């Protein structure tokens, strides 16, 4: 599972959530698209199944089958710029790093951090209550998406400051689920 934030032209960013596994000469998986801000791209709301036959170097091109259509593509990357050729057209993207959210929040010593949904889906279970202290690796929230279950844990110990979702909620990608405070006692 990876979420890539892409920007092109003057448009708003789009997060592409890819969950893929390698098959013989191909990668198979599902993709989900989430617009960040105003955008007029026609993107499917549902998760889409895809197969990418790696005809070229791994991950730099191939034959992509998505929604019943085949697309030939190649890509080159230079730092955060990504040029993708597909079916005779070249799209220029910028890969937007998520450092803004990460810095000052994720690392130890930061006072507060937000847990966001790494994918769109349903909240199956919330394993903690507000005020609870937890260790690194403790299951906090269990989500379901695309017929798969995922347990979300914290890399560092901490304290639950606020829970911003409820069991059974349908959440968007990047939606804030839980706010934590750094555990001072530990």
């Amino acid at each position, binding site marked *: 599972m990876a979420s890539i934030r892409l920007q092109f032209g003057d448009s708003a960013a789009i997060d592409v959530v890819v969950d893929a596994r390698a098959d013989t000469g191909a990668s198979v998986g599902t993709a989900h698209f989430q617009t960040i801000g105003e955008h007029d*791209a026609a993107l*499917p709301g549902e998760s889409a199944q895809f197969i990418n036959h790696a005809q070229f170097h791994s991950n730099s091109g191939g034959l*992509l089958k998505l929604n019943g259509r085949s697309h030939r593509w190649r890509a080159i990357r230079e730092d955060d710029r990504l040029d993708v050729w597909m079916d005779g057209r070249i799209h220029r993207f910028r890969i937007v790093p998520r450092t803004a959210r990460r810095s000052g929040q994720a690392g130890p010593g930061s006072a507060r951090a937000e847990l966001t949904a790494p994918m769109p889906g349903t909240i199956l279970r919330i394993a903690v209550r507000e005020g609870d202290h937890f260790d690194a690796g403790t299951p906090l929230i269990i989500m379901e998406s695309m*017929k798969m279950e*995922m347990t*979300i844990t914290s*890399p560092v110990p901490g304290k639950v400051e606020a829970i911003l979702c409820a069991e059974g909620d349908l959440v968007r990608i990047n939606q804030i689920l839980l706010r934590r405070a750094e555990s001072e006692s530990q």
Partner: protein
Amino acid sequence: MFRKVLIANRGEIAVRIALTLREMGIIVAAVHSEPDADAPHVVAADEAYNLGGQTSRESYLRGDRIIEIARACRAEAIHPGYGFLSENASFAEQCEQAGITFIGPSPSVIRTMGDKITAKRAMSAAGVPVIPGWSSDAGATLDDATREAARIGFPLLIKAAAGGGGKGMRVVHDANGLADAFGAAQREARAAFGDDRVFLERYIPVARHVEIQVIGDNHGTVLHLLERECSIQRRHQKLVEEAPSPALDDDLRARMGEAAVRGAEAIGYRNAGTFEFMVEPDGRYHFLEVNTRLQVEHPVTELITGLDLVRLQLEIAAGLPLQISQDDIRPRGHAIECRICAEDAASGFLPSTGPIRVLQWASGPGIRVDSGVREGSDVTVHYDPMIAKLIVHAPDRSSAIDRMTRALRDTCILGVTTNIEFLGQVMSHPAFRAGDVTTRFLDDHAINDPGPQPGPAALLAAALAARGTGAVQPAMSQSGPDSCNSPWTSGTWRMR
């Protein structure tokens, strides 16, 4: 036939000439500049010789060095390709003096046709229709120009008498604009060619550019190999060429072909050459100039006639008589050529430079690629931005357009900006499809469609490329392959 031929050129044309030489069992000698040491035209040759230098002037324009190398490596002939020394009469003369065959017309023909004024005079005398005009003497005054302009009528075109191509051409719409344009043209002509003579002629705003390929041997036979339509131009330089022309019927084709042959015979033309004409909407045609060399767009003629023009050039240069007659020349199907240039069509066709990191050509029936680059080549400021030509052949014009559209879509160049998408837009333009083209096509039709925003497939491909370790990623981004959004770690997935 020659045992060894030196190609005094680079890029796609040098590669293309080498292919025919190899088919004929002739040893190929290449020359190259410093940055071209391992260029495709060098790899395509049996022998390669370093001219030194970076720029054209320091390398491919060094006629003295090239003749020296030809003698040292015992090449019997030099093929000049197009551009560089191909229309340099002095170079052709020096070759002759060194006992090396220059593959092209005689130095005197190159000289006469290289000057627009003498060329026009010679063609007018041979009964080839020319555009009314006037050529200034050296040091002519504005008064002279004003008097002649009144006779010719406005609008008119003003350009340097020496030199070729579209450089320094100006359109003057009325008498008020003449003074500035005349002075500027004189200054430019003096700076570029050391010769301030300029040329005025009636400007024909709406016309097609149609040219006739001719070929003459040393035994008095001159044939024409039909026409090429080259109206799609930017900055007076051709971008798309096709054969046959959608505007010519059999009668006009025959009349223009006969005019070109008449002109070629009158000047004792031998080897391959091109007579360029403007064709007005009513079918009137006017001689423009003769290109005394192989043309960039020669492949479209090769495809519809089934002839190898480079082979014919070599046979003629070796003194062999033409084995074909005019009746043998019949068009078969339709051919289109697109010039693939490293330039940005969206910003006024400015040349772009850089490395070609991905290069993937279209293939399949009726597709020909004449390329001077390969994956990893660097497109530099030193040479022409035209890096390759994509040429298609199909039974008729409509299917040729379909084929070219497909070929452009299947061609991928990443790293340096090219005009491939722009050419695709020309192909799909209704006016082009209708054959309704003039030299003003790109002025009349705004072709700069940024296209739809990337759809899900392109976004997903980008995400896959961004995510991967990426074999073609020289510089790893700071964010690394793990751009996962959450500062929190996700647990293990399991299927339900």
